[in-house]
């Protein structure tokens, strides 16, 4: 699509921090539901309106995510349910989905999610000021995954380095492949040990999964583990930061968050809409299609504008108001269709638990007066940092 000049040519949605993303979206929306923008220095399409984005998520003929993911993630991540299509995708997803369905995820809350939240709250005890992203929202979902995988606490930081590096393949192929080697040999030892002596943990359950009557081989299991970090940790931590930025800045919502599970679920949902962690999801078109007024060609890159669709005033009136009581049935943060986020239930329980435990432990917690919260990132988006005072004024 080289011939089409991007709107807002001074803004690159991959490289720039776009703290004013929501304003930029509204400037772009005037030109139509699907517009050309700049991404990685080149023009791509951005889908902005809810109707068109919903259509694209459900249209696997023209927007099969597999082809794009094979290019940008498969070299370091391997072949995962993100790179698979059709029956192969359904079979592989079906084989692991039980581990992420409501019944199983409910059991993780008490066994895993709440204790980890408390552990992290213990670590900030006594501190007058804490940077909440590094102190809580980042390690929280990451630790849920490392504990699910049976990784000892002492190895968590080494593991975090690998996990972060794995997704850097497009701009640091050597680093990403080196991280992959470290990650794989470490996880292989855990897989081997569970094969010899199964327990009832997550790894053992995955090892026991059968696909077409056969147990999974090592590589598909490793690929699944590699995917867990970008899919389940980076997203949730960005969103947890945004969520607390909102809740702590509004006394009324904070009172609601302390009230009960239903209120916390509604607040977490509104947080997912108001500042979705995956603001724009890159996909490659797999067929020619006219969407809105845009003539998208096979092979064009397309940004799925989740943040833009979540703020489409035709679907969410007064969209920039943080209002947990609004009708959020059309929330599109977890995508749509057969590739709908597998970890949605886990992510929601983590966010709800975070609200519960943080206010239980530090009922007076507040944003540090005078510190500015800035949300950044055109692809993954969350607060750059979030300074809080756990004990309030004291």
């Amino acid at each position: 699509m080289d011939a089409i000049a991007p709107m807002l040519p001074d803004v690159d949605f991959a490289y720039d921090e776009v703290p004013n993303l929501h304003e930029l979206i509204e400037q772009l929306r005037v030109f139509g539901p699907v517009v050309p923008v700049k991404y990685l220095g080149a023009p791509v399409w951005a889908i902005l309106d809810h109707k068109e984005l919903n259509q694209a998520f459900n249209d696997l003929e023209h927007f099969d995510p597999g082809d794009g993911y094979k290019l940008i993630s498969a070299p370091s991540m391997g072949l995962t349910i993100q790179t698979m299509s059709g029956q192969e995708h359904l079979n592989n997803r079906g084989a692991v989905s039980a581990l992420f369905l409501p019944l199983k995820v409910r059991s993780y809350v008490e066994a895993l999610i709440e204790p980890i939240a408390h552990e992290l709250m213990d670590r900030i005890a006594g501190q007058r000021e804490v940077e909440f992203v590094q102190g809580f929202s980042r390690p929280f979902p990451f630790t849920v995954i490392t504990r699910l995988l049976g990784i000892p606490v002492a190895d968590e930081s080494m593991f975090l380095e690998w996990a972060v590096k794995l997704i850097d393949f497009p701009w640091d192929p050597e680093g990403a492949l080196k991280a992959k080697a470290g990650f794989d040999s470490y996880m292989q030892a855990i897989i081997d040990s569970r094969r010899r002596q199964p327990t009832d943990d997550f790894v053992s359950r995955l090892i026991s999964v059968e696909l077409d009557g056969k147990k999974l081989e090592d590589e598909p299991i490793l690929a699944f583990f590699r995917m867990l970090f970008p899919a389940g940790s980076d997203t949730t931590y960005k969103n947890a930061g945004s969520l607390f930025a909102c809740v702590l800045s509004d006394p009324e919502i904070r009172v609601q968050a302390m009230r009960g599970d239903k209120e916390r679920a509604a607040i977490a949902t509104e947080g997912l809409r108001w500042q979705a962690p995956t603001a724009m999801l890159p996909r490659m078109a797999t067929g020619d299609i006219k969407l809105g007024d845009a003539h998208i060609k096979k092979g064009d890159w397309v940004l799925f504008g989740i943040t833009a669709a979540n703020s489409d005033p035709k679907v969410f009136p007064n969209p920039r108001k943080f209002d947990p009581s609004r009708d959020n049935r059309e929330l599109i943060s977890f995508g749509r269709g057969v590739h709908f986020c597998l970890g949605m239930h886990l992510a929601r329980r983590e966010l709800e638990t975070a609200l519960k435990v943080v206010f239980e432990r530090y009922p007076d917690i507040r944003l540090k007066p005078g510190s500015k919260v800035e949300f950044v990132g055109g692809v993954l988006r969350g607060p750059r940092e979030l300074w809080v005072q756990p004990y309030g004024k004291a």
Partner: protein
Amino acid sequence: MQVIFIDDQGTQHFVNAEPGDNAMRCATDHLVSGIVGECGGAMACATCHGYVDEAWLDKLPQPSAQEREMLSGCIDMRPNSRLTCQIRLTESLDGLIIRVPDSQT
């Protein structure tokens, strides 16, 4: 035709529908509390679980293997559990009663 949803608050919703509609969409279009259908009807989210009234069970086709797999991961699954996104309405289902579970999560 009509479908009757009894939501998680015990409220009855008499929802007008057309043959060919899917039951999940009828519920969400009429703001039936407790049916979410977040993936849009692709059997990928397990948030449209409902209990089909026993009297109507044998009028519905059996759930597919994929639907049964998803149902087994829902909270409080029962023999009459269905994903409502997989119930395609027909004239013979006029008056169908679906109860919404206390919680999808």
